């Protein structure tokens, strides 16, 4: 299926894009992240969380949405 990945903050500098759509045929978010880390090796040592449907989820969750958001540490306020 087609999945749109969004990158915020520092992560968009690593990937040099804020958003991209890729093909993904597996099940878990961790499996999607493995593919992204192959595409962007500098992602591996970055601290980030992932959100689907506007909620943070753990990497071993199933991908349930066609959008996954990668978020670096929050620094608002």
């Amino acid at each position, binding site marked *: 299926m087609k999945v749109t990945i969004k990158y*915020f903050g520092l992560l968009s500098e690593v990937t040099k894009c804020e958003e991209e759509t890729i093909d993904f045929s597996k099940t878990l978010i961790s499996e999607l992240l493995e593919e992204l880390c192959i595409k962007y090796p500098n992602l591996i040592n970055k601290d980030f969380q992932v*959100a689907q449907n506007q909620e943070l989820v753990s990497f071993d969750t199933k991908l349930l949405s066609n959008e996954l958001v990668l978020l670096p*540490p929050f*620094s*608002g306020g």
Partner: protein
Amino acid sequence: MSDKKIKSVFIQGAISSEFIGESIAKHQTKISIGAHNIFLGQVRADVIDNKIVAAIEYTAYEDMANAKFHEIREAAFEKFELTCMHIYHSLGTVNAGEICLFVFVSSPHRKAVFDALEFIVEEIKSKVPVFGKEIFEDNSHQWKVNS
């Protein structure tokens, strides 16, 4: 109150002192209020590796951020005896010395506002996907990390 509708807390650029003064003035018709407590986050001109922070450029995952701000609002109204609550956060560039976060709580009694304000600010810092890019005077940058 229209607390049930999720509205954006984001403002483009710095939050002005006039805006804050006007917000205070609007509460003077609410005569059950006895105590207000206001938190303001201001951009510091930190010195990092001999370079001075000139501004912070804020971005956010806005949909999730507004949803989180809404959850924090609901939780605060649930936990504390509040008459009203307002939260504003900047997006875009805020220069050193300017205000980027304005949290305003009001209650009949002071204990509630002290407890509520600290709760809300800590929740914002930890749960809302906002990202600050510290721009140095030489135009280089680094990504801010909250302490």
